[in-house]
């Protein structure tokens, strides 16, 4: 029984970061209808930049986290300006290929700069694992939960109560109408890349103390993030995070009860089944499918 609870707890922790990666997909998709295949690399960059801010510059942890998030955000904006903007308006295939290209370049550059080893980040706060119903909960899990909730609340506030957030929603709803209302669509798109990179980097930073991070973690995290937002209904931020947590738990249960080798397959089997059977996601409305 306590084993089962343990699987659920650790699954939910990892799942929260899938959710954050999914949230990143959602933000860009809402503003542009692009699925950013480099989303996982933002998560990777967050973790890796923080690790190396500490190793190379000796930065204290909070400064390293800040540097990692800012650095990744800059990469996100640069990606939009340099690669996505020139091919905007072309076919979906062109956009897919460009974002795949960016993800390969980011991953390859990370390998060249940081090497192929796996690294760990110190936990955000010291302390013994808490014991809940016989299951151990490391303090970092609380950080993951707290930061994820914080980001969700922040997002909601941003979209509901700020002009910039409302402008982004307007672009998502109807780009042409938004432009006619005086919204600078190109800026909003850049901002969506910045926001998405920021959320992804935060996910990478809070996950790094729990699982190791290396240059190639982005592929899996990105794909699972995408599966999470399909599970929650593409375009729905809360759905993405909920989808991520559900997937993390299922994955952890598979690893614990069936076979750890097949745990990565869980996400993709779920992804395929959902794409085939219920493309609008668990929490989506039937008409939410946008193709």
């Amino acid at each position, binding site marked *: 029984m306590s084993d089962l609870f343990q699987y659920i707890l650790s699954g939910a922790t990892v799942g929260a970061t899938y959710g954050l990666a999914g949230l990143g997909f959602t933000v860009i998709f809402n503003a542009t209808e692009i699925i950013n295949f480099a989303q996982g690399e933002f998560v990777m960059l967050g973790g890796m930049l923080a690790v190396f801010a500490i190793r190379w510059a000796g930065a204290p942890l909070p400064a390293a986290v800040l540097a990692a998030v800012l650095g990744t955000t800059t990469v996100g904006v640069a990606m939009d300006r340099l690669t996505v903007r020139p091919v905007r308006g072309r076919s979906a295939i*062109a956009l897919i290929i*460009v974002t*795949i*290209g960016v993800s390969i*370049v980011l991953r*390859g550059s990370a390998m060249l700069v940081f090497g192929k080893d796996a690294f760990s980040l110190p936990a955000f706060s010291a302390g013994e694992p808490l014991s809940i119903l016989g299951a151990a909960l490391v303090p970092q899990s609380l950080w993951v939960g707290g930061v994820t909730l914080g980001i969700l609340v922040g997002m909601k506030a941003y979209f509901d109560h700020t002009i910039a957030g409302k402008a982004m929603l307007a672009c998502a709803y109807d780009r042409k109408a938004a432009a006619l209302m005086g919204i600078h669509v190109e800026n909003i798109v850049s901002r969506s890349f910045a926001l998405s990179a920021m959320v992804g980097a935060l996910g990478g930073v809070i996950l790094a103390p729990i699982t190791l991070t290396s240059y190639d973690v982005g592929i899996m995290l990105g794909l699972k993030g995408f599966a999470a937002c399909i599970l929650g209904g593409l375009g729905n931020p809360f759905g993405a995070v909920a989808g991520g947590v559900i997937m993390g738990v299922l994955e952890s249960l598979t690893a614990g009860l069936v076979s750890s080798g097949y745990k990565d397959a869980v996400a993709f089997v779920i992804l*395929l089944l959902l*794409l085939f059977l219920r493309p609008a996601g668990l929490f989506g409305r039937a008409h939410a499918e946008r193709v």
Partner: protein
Amino acid sequence: MRPAGPAATLLIGATVIAVLPVLLPNEYYLTVLIVAGLNGIIALGLNLLMGYAGQISLGHAAFYGLAAYTTGILTATYHWPVPAGMAAAVALVLAVSALIAVPTLRLKGHYLAMGTLGFGLIVYIVLNEATGLTGGPSGLGGIPRLSLAGRPVTSDLAYYYVVWAAVLLCFAVAGNLVRSRLGRALRAIHTSETAAAALGIDTERTKIGVFVLSACMAAVAGTLYAHYVRFVSPGTFGFAASVQLVTMVVLGGMGSLWGGLAGAVVLTVLPEVLRALEDYDIVVYGLLLILCMMYLPGGLVEGVDRLWRLVTARRLRLAPPEDPA
């Protein structure tokens, strides 16, 4: 310049293929060209799907691997004759791809990309984990050689001719398909699925058909790979391989059969030539993808075409004006 007819094109291709080995400095380049041919077969099929029908697949390496493993397991572990193993492998891929195609091709654009990607990863994970059957991450060895008319194909030169004969065959098939009613249907779907459907094209069946055909071409390449290298391991058939295949088609030129083939040959031979690249090769791939999409959406074929026009245009301008008198 009058474009050469299909038969003449094939003849020229066959001549180049026949003569090329004589010009090579050593045996090693033969190996490179065999791999280039295998990639070329897959790129031809993938180009039908991407360039003509406008559908993307990020999981084609999975079909390649599925076929290589199937014939490998049947012939090495269960001692089937090689032709039977190869036929079974292609048949299995045909069945699997048809099964996958029916729900997957209802998806469009990004969803299709993610769906095929997910399928590719599942196959990759199974190849790694089903150790009893596949040998897991350390791979499967002891696969017998291909034999033709009872004699095993031992030399690289012979295998080169086998592989490139298969390339020519696939090129001829794809070429015929593209020029047929079906080829026009594919291009119509690419332009507008709704319009194509309105004109009476069964878009769903056409898309499934071309998807299965391209998967089967990858399967043919996979079986040829397995009996050439005689060892298969999952690493060859992962996500990176799928992306590499897409890169070949994009770089060579989507919607041009020559382009796909050229992209496959260039991207197989280039890393061998630029040995110094080593770890940088992956970054170069990424940059190629991005730059190609930004500046040369038609790929190498478009580049050569533009260059040709530039050269001929200049020559025309330089020619002295004709005397009207």
